[in-house]
C-alpha cells in the first residue's frame, strides 16, 4: 500500500483513491462542493485545492478530488497559498450570489455559509451588477433558485448516473450557465428529492419542505423508512411536534446515500388530523355477553364511547378472556401487521400464545406497489411494508404466509369469534372480504393509528398506537438486515407504541411484571428467537446487522 504524507504526517493509503476522499476518511478538513462520493468526479468547483508534490507530479496547487493516491505523494491541506486559493474560489462563488440567507431554506446547512466561516470576507469587493438567473420548478418536487446555484453539477450527474433519467442539464454557458430541465419535461424520477439533499447550496430546494422550519430549530432522530422492504436509512427532522422532513442517511449496504420520493414524502400521516389520540370502545359489554349468548352485534352498528387507555386495555383483555373461557382459545385469533416492529411482533405473538393461547395468527400487509430499479442499482421494492421479513421470523413463516387465510376461514366457519389486530398501515386498502368477515365478528380489538383506518371501522375497542416516528424499535428489511428506528416525537394524546400496549396486555394477562423499553424487549427477543441470537441494540449501531450475523461471519460481513 502506498505511503503518503498529509500535512507532514504519514499514512498508508489505498492506491488510486482520490486524495479528497482519503482526507475526509481520515477526518481531515477539506472543503468541497462538486465532489460527491456517489458521482463521477467533475473537478469544477476548485474548492478542494491542496498543495501537492510527488513523483511525476508538477508540484503546486491542485484539486484533491482529481488527485489519485500514489506512493510518496505529499499533500498540504492548510498551506497559506491553499488558504488563499480557497478564499478566491469562495469569493468567486459569492460575487453573483444573492446572499439571501435570511429567506433561504438551506441556511444552516449550506456549504457557502460553512466555508464563509473559514474562508469568507467580511465585505464584498464586488460592486457591479450581479448576473441573475431563473427561479422555477425543475421537477414535481424540486424548485431551483438559479441565483444561488454554483453550477457544481451534482444534480445533473445524479439524474444521469444514479437515477439514469437525465432530466437536468446545464444550459447556456459561462456565468450564464444554469441548471434546467427540457421545457415540458420536468424532473419526475422517483429519486428526485435527493437532488435537493446533495445540492450543497440553496439552489435546489424541496418544495415539500419549503419555508417549513429553520433547520437549526429542528430535532433529528435516526430511523429507517417504513414505506417498502428495502428499509432505507433515514433521518427524521421534526419541529414543534411534527415531522418536517425525511432525509436519507448513508448506509452502503442498503440505500447508499439515497431515499426515494415515495418514502421521502410518506410522513404526512404522522401528523394528519385523523390521528388517533384517545382510546374508545363501543358495545363491549354487549359483545362479551353476546359472545356467550351467540347473538353478536356487529360493531359498525354501535355508537362510540370515549374510554381511558387503561380502561380500554382492561376491557380488551377481559373480553378476549371471556371468549376464551366461553368458546375455547381457538375462538380468538390475532392479526398482526407487517408495519409492526420486530419487538412488537414478538410481543404480539407472546400475548396471543401465552396470554390467550390462540391457535391462529395471521399477517396483514400493505398491498404491493410498483417495483422500480435505477441505473445505479438503487431499488424500490414492490413490497410496501417495512417488516415482512421480521414477521416471517417472529410470527413463523407459516403464519406469515397462510395465517390470514386460516383466520378468514375460521371466521367464515364461525369458529373464530373475536380478533385482536395490531399495527396501523397508512394507506392500506385491505381485501374487502377481510373487512366483511371482521364486520360480522362479536368482538374486534385493534391497535391502530388513524381514526378512519379500515380496521377501526370494524372494531369494538380501539387502542391508539404510534407511527414509526413515535417509537423505538427495529425492522428487518428484505435482505434480513435488522435496523433500528428511533423515536423522534411523542405519540399524540394517550396513544402509545404498540410495544407498550402489548406489554400492558401481557401484564393484565399475568404474563409479565412490567413494561420494558424497546431495547429490553429486543434483548428478550434475541434470547428467545434463534434467528436474532446474538444481536443487541448496541450491536446494531446505526447501520444494522443481518439476521444470523452473530453465528455466521459470512453474514456478518454483509
Amino acid at each position, binding site marked *: 500500500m502506498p505511503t503518503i504524507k498529509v500535512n507532514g504526517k504519514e499514512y498508508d493509503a489505498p492506491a488510486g483513491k482520490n486524495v479528497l476522499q482519503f482526507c475526509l476518511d481520515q477526518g481531515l478538513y477539506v472543503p468541497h462542493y462538486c465532489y460527491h462520493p456517489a458521482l463521477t468526479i467533475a473537478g469544477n468547483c476548485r474548492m478542494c485545492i491542496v498543495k501537492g508534490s510527488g513523483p511525476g507530479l508538477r508540484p503546486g496547487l491542485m484539486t484533491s478530488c482529481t488527485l489519485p493516491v500514489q506512493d510518496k505523494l505529499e499533500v498540504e491541506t492548510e498551506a497559506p497559498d491553499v488558504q488563499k486559493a480557497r478564499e*478566491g474560489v469562495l469569493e468567486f462563488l459569492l460575487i453573483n450570489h444573492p446572499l439571501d440567507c435570511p429567506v433561504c431554506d438551506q441556511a444552516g446547512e449550506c456549504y457557502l455559509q460553512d466555508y464563509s466561516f473559514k474562508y469568507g470576507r467580511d465585505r464584498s469587493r464586488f460592486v457591479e451588477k450581479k448576473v441573475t438567473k431563473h427561479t422555477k420548478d425543475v421537477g414535481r418536487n424540486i424548485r431551483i433558485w438559479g441565483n444561488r446555484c454554483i453550477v457544481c453539477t451534482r444534480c445533473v450527474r445524479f439524474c444521469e448516473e444514479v437515477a439514469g433519467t437525465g432530466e437536468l442539464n446545464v444550459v447556456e454557458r*459561462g456565468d450564464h450557465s444554469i441548471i434546467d430541465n427540457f421545457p415540458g419535461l420536468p424532473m419526475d424520477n422517483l429519486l428526485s428529492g435527493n437532488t435537493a439533499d446533495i445540492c450543497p447550496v440553496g439552489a435546489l430546494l424541496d418544495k415539500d419542505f419549503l419555508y417549513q422550519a429553520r433547520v437549526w430549530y429542528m430535532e433529528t432522530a435516526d430511523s429507517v423508512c417504513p414505506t417498502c422492504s428495502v428499509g432505507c436509512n433515514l433521518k427524521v427532522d421534526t419541529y414543534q411536534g411534527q415531522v418536517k422532513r425525511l432525509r436519507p442517511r448513508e448506509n452502503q449496504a442498503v440505500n447508499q446515500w439515497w431515499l426515494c420520493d415515495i418514502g421521502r414524502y410518506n410522513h404526512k400521516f404522522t401528523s394528519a388530523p385523523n390521528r388517533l389520540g384517545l382510546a374508545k370502545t363501543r358495545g363491549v359489554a354487549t359483545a362479551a355477553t353476546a359472545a356467550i349468548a351467540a347473538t353478536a352485534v356487529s360493531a359498525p352498528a354501535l355508537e362510540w364511547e370515549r374510554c381511558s387507555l387503561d380502561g380500554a386495555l382492561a376491557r380488551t383483555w377481559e373480553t378476549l378472556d371471556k371468549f376464551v373461557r366461553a368458546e375455547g382459545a381457538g375462538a380468538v385469533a390475532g392479526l398482526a401487521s407487517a408495519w409492526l416492529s420486530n419487538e412488537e411482533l414478538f410481543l404480539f405473538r407472546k400475548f396471543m400464545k401465552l396470554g390467550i393461547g390462540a391457535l391462529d395468527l395471521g399477517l396483514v400487509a400493505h398491498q404491493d406497489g410498483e417495483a422500480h430499479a435505477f441505473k445505479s442499482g438503487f431499488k424500490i421494492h414492490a413490497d410496501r411494508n417495512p417488516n415482512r421479513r421480521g414477521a416471517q421470523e417472529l410470527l413463523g413463516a407459516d403464519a406469515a404466509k397462510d395465517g390470514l387465510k386460516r383466520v378468514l376461514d375460521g371466521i367464515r366457519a364461525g369458529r373464530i369469534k373475536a380478533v385482536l389486530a395490531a399495527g396501523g398501515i397508512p394507506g392500506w386498502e385491505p381485501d374487502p372480504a377481510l373487512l366483511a368477515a371482521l364486520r360480522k365478528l362479536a368482538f374486534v380489538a385493534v391497535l391502530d393509528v388513524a381514526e378512519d383506518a379500515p380496521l377501526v371501522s370494524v372494531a369494538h375497542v380501539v387502542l391508539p398506537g404510534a407511527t414509526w416516528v413515535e417509537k423505538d424499535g427495529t425492522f428487518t428489511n428484505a435482505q434480513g438486515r435488522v435496523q433500528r428506528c428511533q423515536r423522534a416525537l411523542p405519540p399524540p394524546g394517550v396513544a402509545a407504541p404498540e410495544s407498550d400496549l402489548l406489554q400492558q396486555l401481557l401484564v393484565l394477562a399475568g404474563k409479565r411484571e412490567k413494561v420494558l423499553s424497546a431495547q429490553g424487549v429486543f434483548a428478550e427477543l434475541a434470547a428467545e428467537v434463534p434467528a436474532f441470537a446474538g444481536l443487541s441494540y448496541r450491536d446494531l449501531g446505526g447501520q444494522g446487522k443481518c439476521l444470523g450475523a452473530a453465528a455466521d461471519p459470512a453474514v456478518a460481513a454483509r
Partner: protein
Amino acid sequence: MALEPLLLKHRNTPGSAALEFYLAQGGYEAAKKAIRDFAPDKLIEEVKASGLRGRGGAGFPCGMKWSFVPKSNDKPKYLAVNADESEPGTFKDRILIEQLPHLLLEGILICCWAVQIKTAYIYIRGEFTEGAKILQKAIDEAYAKGYFGKNALGSGLDVDVTLHRGAGAYICGEETGLLTSLEGNRGYPKLKPPFPATHGLFRCPTVVNNVETLSNLPFIVNRGAAWFKTIGTEKSPGGKLFCVCGHVKKPDTYEVPLGTPFKELLALAGGVLDDRPLKAVVPGGSSAPVLTADEAMKVNMDFDSLAAAKTMLGSGGVIVMHDGTCMVDALYNLLRFYHHESCGQCTPCREGTGWIEKILHRLEHGQGRTEDFSLLMDICDNMQGKTICVLADAAVLPTRSFVTKFRAEFEYHVKQRKCLVARDA
C-alpha cells in the same frame, strides 16, 4: 530573412484547392514516400529529429507527442485535427483549409501512418462554412482516389477521415474541449491527467494536432528533418505562418522562418497604419501577454525569444496597435471575449472573467477606482493556474500585462475619468 514560401506557395493561385492542381505540384508523393521509406517508428523519429513544434499555441514537440501514444493496438487510436481556429488575431488555418486542403489531408495521412491511426476527425469551427465545403470536397476527391479508406494509399492501413463541424465555441479549440465536443457534449475541457495520448477521444489514445502543424509534415518527409532544421532557430525550427493584423498597412498571413525579428515582420506587413507610432503588440494571439513598442521592436518571433520576453508565440496571431489605441478599451474588448467564451465549468474562470470585464467596463467608462488595480491583480492571482484548462490563464495574461505595462493610461482613466488617447476608428 527570406524564405522560400512552402505552405503559402500556392495561395492565391486559382484552383489551388483542387486535387489535380495539388497532384501537379507533386501532391501526395510525400505520403507515399513516408509509407514506402519509413517504418512508423522511424517516421516518428524523423519528425522528432525535425524539431517540429505544434503550431496551435502550446508549441509542444510534435514527434514527442506522437511517441506518447501507446504502440499496442488493443484500443482504437484517433487523430483529432484541430481546425477550430478561433484565437483572436489568428487566421492562418483558414487559409490553409480554403486554399490547400490536400496539403492538410496529406499531413493527416503521414501522421496516421506514423502513429498507425485508422480514424481521423477534422474538427473545423462551425463558422467556417466555406472552408468546410472546400475541405469536404477535397476529402471526397481523396477517397475517390483511394488515398483514404481501405488500404489507404496502398499502405495496408485503413485510414478514414471525417470532417466534423463545430458550432461556435472558442473553448473547443482547447484540445480536450475539442474532444469532449466531438463526443457530442458541451465542450467542457477534460480533467488532466489522464492526457489525450492515452485517454483522449472516446477514452482511447488520441493525437491532437493543429492544421498548420500537419501541413508541415509533407515537406519534412520530402526534404528530410535535417533540411527542416536549417530553417528557423535551433529550438524553433521551421517556418511559421504569422497573422499580422490590427494597425498595419497590409494585414495578412506571412510565412517566415521562426526567429524572424518582429521588426522585419512588421515591415513585411507594410509598417504601422498611417505611419503612426507603434504602441503595442500582442505577438501570439490574444492570450499572449502584450509587448510595448520597445519590447516588440527588439524581439524575435520564435518560441524561446518570446518566452524570454515573458510572452508567447502562441498561435502566431500578431495584433499590432498604434498610438491611437486606448489600452483600457482594448483590454476590455479582450476580456469581453474571454467572458463570453468561458465554458463556465470551473468557478474561477466562470466568475472571474465576467468580474474583470465588469471592472474594465467601469474603468473604460470613467468609473474606475484606485483600488481596482490591486483588485484586478488579486483576481488574476485567484484565477491563474486554478482551473481545468488554461482559458482562465489566457484571460489573466493580457489583463496583467496591459494593466502593468500601460498603468499610466489606466490611471488616467481613473483620475480624469476619460481616455488618454484621442479615439479614432
